[in-house]
C-alpha cells in the first residue's frame, strides 16, 4: 500500500468577512491507496475545509499536505489545476451543469482533460452503466432524481481515472433509502475496483460503512476508528 495523502500539522485560516476563522488547527492524517475513509464531525469542525485542501481547491495556510508525495503548498495555480484532474470530486449539491445531459456532464470533465471525443463517449457510457444509469444518459439533471443525479456526479468524478474520490456529504441532500444505495455503490467501487475514497459526513450511521473513520472537532482530528 502506498500513501496517497499525507497531512502534517495542516492549518487553514480564512477570513469570514473581517473575522479570521481557524478552520484547521494542525491536522495530521494519512490515507493509503485502497482506503475508504470517512471524516465525521459536526458542522464547523473543519471537515469540508480539509476535503477542499485534499482536492486542491484551496491552499493550506501552514503545515504540509503531500498528495502522492508532492507538497500542495508549493504548487502554482496551473499545477493545482493539473492536480484537480487527478481527483474525483463529488459534492453535496451534485453540481451538475443543468444544460447538459447526464452523458454530456460526464464527457465535460473528460473534455477538460483533453480526452478525445470517441474515447469520451465510450468511457461515459461505460461509467453510466457502472452507476446503473445507462438508460437515462440522455436526460438532463432536472429530469433526474436526487439519487440519480448523485450517481451521475460519481460517474463524472470517476471519468478521468482519479487517484482517489473525494465526497463532500454525498448523501446529505437525498433520502435515506437512496443514500444507502449510493453508499453501496461507493463501497462496491472501493472493494471491487480498488477506488480510494474519502468521504465527509456528519451522519454517524453512514460513517460506519467506511473502512476507517476520523472524528473532527474544532479543526482537529480527535479520534480515529478502524471499522
Amino acid at each position, binding site marked *: 500500500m502506498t500513501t496517497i495523502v499525507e497531512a502534517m500539522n495542516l492549518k487553514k485560516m480564512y477570513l469570514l468577512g473581517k473575522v479570521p476563522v481557524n478552520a484547521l488547527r494542525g491536522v495530521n492524517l494519512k490515507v493509503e491507496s485502497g482506503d475508504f475513509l470517512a471524516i465525521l464531525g459536526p458542522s464547523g469542525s473543519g471537515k469540508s475545509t480539509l476535503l477542499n485542501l485534499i482536492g486542491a481547491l484551496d491552499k493550506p495556510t501552514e503545515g504540509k499536505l503531500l498528495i502522492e508525495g508532492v507538497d500542495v503548498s508549493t504548487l502554482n495555480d496551473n499545477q493545482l489545476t493539473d492536480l484537480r484532474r487527478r481527483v474525483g470530486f463529488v459534492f453535496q449539491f451534485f453540481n451538475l451543469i443543468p444544460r447538459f445531459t447526464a452523458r454530456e456532464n460526464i464527457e465535460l470533465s473528460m*473534455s*477538460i482533460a483533453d480526452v478525445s471525443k470517441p474515447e469520451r463517449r465510450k468511457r461515459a457510457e461505460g461509467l453510466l452503466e457502472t452507476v446503473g444509469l445507462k438508460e437515462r444518459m440522455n436526460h438532463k439533471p432536472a429530469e433526474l432524481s436526487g439519487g440519480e443525479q448523485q450517481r451521475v456526479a460519481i460517474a463524472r468524478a470517476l471519468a478521468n481515472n482519479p487517484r482517489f474520490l473525494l465526497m463532500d456529504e454525498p448523501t446529505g441532500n437525498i433520502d435515506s433509502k437512496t443514500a444507502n444505495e449510493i453508499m453501496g455503490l461507493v463501497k462496491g467501487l472501493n472493494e471491487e475496483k480498488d477506488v480510494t475514497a474519502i468521504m465527509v459526513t456528519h451522519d454517524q450511521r453512514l460513517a460506519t460503512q467506511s473502512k476507517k473513520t476520523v472524528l473532527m472537532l474544532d479543526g482537529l482530528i480527535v479520534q480515529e476508528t478502524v471499522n
Partner: protein
Amino acid sequence: MKARDTLSYSFSAIKLRKLRAALTTLGVVIGIAAIVALLSISQGLQNTITVQLQRGFATDTLIVTAGGGVGGGFGVGLGGGGDSGFTLLVNDTQTINGIPNVDMSLAIIQRTVNVTVGGTNKIRTIVGVDFADYHNVYSDTFVADRGTIPLNPESNIVVAGRRIIDPQLNGTMLADVNGPIDIILINATARPPTTITVHRNITAILKEIGSFGVGGPSDSSVYIPIAQAQTLFDTNECDMIIVKLKSSDQTVIDNASKAIKDKFVGEVSVISATAVLGIVSSIFSIIELFLGGIAAISLIVAGVGIMNIMIVSLMERTREIGILKALGTKSRTVLLIFLCEAVIIGLMGGAIGVGLGWVLANVVALVFRGGGVFMGGQAAGATGGMTITPVLTPIVFLGALAFGVGVSVVFAIYPAWRASKLKPVDALRYE
C-alpha cells in the same frame, strides 16, 4: 480543453439564453448596420459625384476664371473678379491658345435671368458659348435630342437644356423645337430699371445629362451664341474660359495650368478635373470619418451592453465556473470560454449588421432615386435626378466585421478576466 470543445461550450452557454443573446447581438447589429449603411452610401455618393464631374468636366480640360490666389477656383460661374479689378475678356482665348499643349479654348458668359417657356416663368441660367467649340469639348453631353445644334447659329435661336422644356423630366414638354422662348433682361442702367423681353426660337433640345459638371452643359441652362450674349449683356468680359488640352497627362495639366497662370501674372485661377476630384475625395474622407465616428459611438454603446450582460451572466454562472474549475479547468480556458462567447456575439452581430446595413443603404438609395415620387418635383430638382449606387468595399465589409468582433471582445475582457480569477472554493459556495 481543446479549442473546438471550448467553442462548443461557449455556444451551449449562448443557446441557453437565446433572447438575452439576441438582444445583446442586436446592439452590435445596429452599430455595424449604421456604419455599413452610412459608409456605403457616402462611398456611392462619392462615386456618383465623381462620375458626373468627370462627365461634365472632361479630364483634359482646364477652367480659367478671373481672380488669383488660393481656392479662387470655387468662384467659378459666379463671374467674380479679383480685388485688382482684373476680368477675363472673351478674346483672352487667343492668348491662351498660344500656350503649348493647349488644343483650343472657349469663353463662357453666363447670367441668371427669368425665362418664360410655354407660359411658365422660371429663373434659369443663360450661357453664351461658341456652339461648335462647346460641342468639341463636351461631345458627349452637348448633344441634341430634338432638332440640331447649328455650328454657325443665327442670332435669334437658343439651345435648351432638358429641364428647360421638361422640368419634371417626365415627358411633359412645355414647348418643342421651333417653339418660342422669352428671355427677360433687366435694363439696370435705366432709372428706374426696366425689363426687356427678348424673343427667341428653340432650335435644339439637349438630351438629358443628369450631371452637374463645372463649366460643362447642364439640364437647367439655356444656350445662346457667344456673340449674342455679348450683345444682350453688353459686355466683352467672360465668366470663364474652358481650355481643352492636347492630352490628359498629369504633367501636361500641371504645366499648362502654370503657364496660363504665369501668362496672366497670377490674376486668374486655373482648376483641373483632377484637382476638383481631389478636393471632392478629401471632402468625402472627412464626411466618412465623421459618419463612421457617429456610427462607431453606437457600437461602443453596444459594447457597454455586452459588458453589462457578461457581468450579469458571470454572477449567474459563478457556480458553473466553480464546477469547471473543480473539474480541473485552467483559468486561461475559463477566460477563453467567455471571450469566445463575445466573439460569437460579435461575429453574428457583425454578419447580420453588414447584411442589414447593405439593405438599408439600398433602401435609402431607392428613396433618393424616387425622390420625385415622394417629395415632388422640387426634391428631384435638388438631387438633379442623381442615382446613388451604394458601394460596399471589401475594406468596409471586413473592417465592420472586425470592428464588431473587436468591440465585443474588448468589452468582454474584464468580465472574462474576473471569471477566470474566481477561486473554486468561493465560486462553489456562491448561491
